[in-house]
């Protein structure tokens, strides 16, 4: 590098110079004017350095805007709603607080009974000790059973299969534990990836449909659409160890080798008959009580409300294809009510319909 180049770099590494070029009100303008006047070569150097800087600015300016004006407005809306219209959520928080307190009271008794020194419970541990809202659903019938999850996903549970999940599915992951065979149709939500845990493997998915088998002898994942990643339980490096399984592929856990093997398969018998049923759950001018009873069954979640108050409420709604919260929003909006949701279920409150 020759000396003039080095001098130019020196200027570019000088805050005062850069500020002078960029900032029209730079406090250093006087200084640089004087510096320029000192030597004819300075003018040349400054011009080159300035030109380079402005070219960089130009190049930066040309950078594309991947989110776009509309996207930026959406983000702002999102922030504003989350910051202000948090009524229902804060409700939920309060309710959770009460629930936690109630359980703590129960805990104290238990601790005494065990003759164990009572630990200092922090709010966190209290929450953990609170009823965790685990829902277990078991298909004891001979036929497949269609289940609805609160996030809008659907599961066709084979006979003898069992799934467990959190009632609300509102953590940063959606998690389901499975034994037996099930066909999953997962509602897309990249913000909240869906995990299925079986005895040996973990399936991670963003939104797709596929079948998971976990029945003692065999553990396999067959994909109908989308893509899922499968990795062995207990492996933290899920990124590096994961097998990506694509449509028409099946990933099987081999017990002998304790590894995952991916093979092609002829066809996945899509269980459309069962899933098709889910589109038929439309209620027209139905009594609220009927709708609520159906909801309770579909999502295996208790719903509490005052039947007398809402005795005159009739609604038109379709169930099954949206998340539970979205459905509740539609219902409560129609009957001008509000709802709260917690590990213990849903409570609907309002003044009824005339």
């Amino acid at each position, binding site marked *: *590098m*020759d000396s*003039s*180049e080095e001098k*130019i*770099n020196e200027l*570019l*590494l000088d*805050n005062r110079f*850069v*500020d002078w070029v*960029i*900032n029209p*009100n730079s406090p250093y303008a006087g200084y640089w004017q004087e510096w320029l006047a000192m030597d004819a070569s300075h003018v040349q*150097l400054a011009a*080159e*350095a300035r*030109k*380079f*800087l402005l*070219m*960089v*600015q*130009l*190049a*930066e300016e*040309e*950078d594309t*805007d*991947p*989110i776009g004006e509309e*996207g*930026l407005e959406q*983000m*702002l809306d*999102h*922030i*504003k709603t*989350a*910051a*202000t219209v948090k009524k229902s959520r804060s409700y939920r928080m309060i309710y959770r607080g009460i629930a936690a307190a109630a359980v703590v009271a129960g805990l104290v008794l238990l601790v005494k009974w065990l003759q164990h020194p009572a630990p200092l419970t922090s709010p966190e541990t209290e929450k953990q000790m609170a009823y965790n809202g685990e829902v277990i659903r078991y298909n004891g019938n001979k036929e497949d059973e269609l289940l609805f999850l609160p996030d809008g996903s659907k599961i066709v549970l084979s006979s003898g299969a069992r799934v467990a999940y959190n009632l609300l599915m509102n953590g940063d992951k959606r998690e389901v534990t499975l034994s037996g065979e099930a066909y999953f149709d997962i509602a897309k939500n*990249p*913000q909240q990836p869906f995990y299925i845990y079986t005895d040996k493997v973990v399936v991670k998915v963003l939104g797709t449909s596929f079948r998971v088998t976990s029945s003692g002898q065999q553990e396999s994942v067959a994909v109908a659409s989308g893509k899922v990643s499968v990795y062995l339980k207990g492996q933290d*490096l899920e*990124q590096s160890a994961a097998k990506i399984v694509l449509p028409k592929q099946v990933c099987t856990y081999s017990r002998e080798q304790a590894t995952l093997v991916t093979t092609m398969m002829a066809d996945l018998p899509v269980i459309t008959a069962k899933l098709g049923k889910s589109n038929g759950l439309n209620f027209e001018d139905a009594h609220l009580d009927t709708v609520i009873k159906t909801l309770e069954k579909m999502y295996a979640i208790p719903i509490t409300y005052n039947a007398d108050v809402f005795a005159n409420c009739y609604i038109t709604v379709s169930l099954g294809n949206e998340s539970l919260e979205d459905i509740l929003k539609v219902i409560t909006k129609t009957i001008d009510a509000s709802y709260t949701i917690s590990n213990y279920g849903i409570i609907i409150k309002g003044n009824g319909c005339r």
Partner: protein
Amino acid sequence: MLNSEHDMDWSRLKKGDIKALEAIYRAHIKALVRYGLKITDDIDLIRDSIQDLFLEIWKQRHNLADTPQPKFYLFRALRNKLTKVQSKQSFVSESEMQLVFDHLSAEYVELEIMNREGAAQTANTLKQLLENLPQRQREAVFLRFYQNISYERIAEMMNMNYQSVLNLMQRALKALKKDYPRFPSKK
């Protein structure tokens, strides 16, 4: 400086004015996205982190310190978020990763340059060159030459010492100019 208004927004924000949050968002969002892109290509991550950042500011508004330059505060907070997630994902410390990347991309830049010899040299070339810089060099160039943030502040933001930032910039300038003989010196 143009910061006096935002300064007022900042104090209004601290009093719980949601409009002030919006004003701050509008004033800085584009620069924040641009900055985020210098750190990661993951646009969803940038979007989420910015949303989180503004929500946190709102929730923490009563505890916010006064700042004459909200931009600086926001940049730094965004950087913290993005690098935290990145290092979580990589299982390798940021500095180790950077060492590897700096090395790799330097070679890549040189290859690029050889391929391009004789090609038309426009601002577009410079843009390309900027994109090919190692991430931290790219970040420093953006902060100094585009955002007019002093080297001292950059050092603070990037958790480096002042001299290292200058060295980083020096390397960046070298790489940029190598393929850009039009400036500065006429050889």
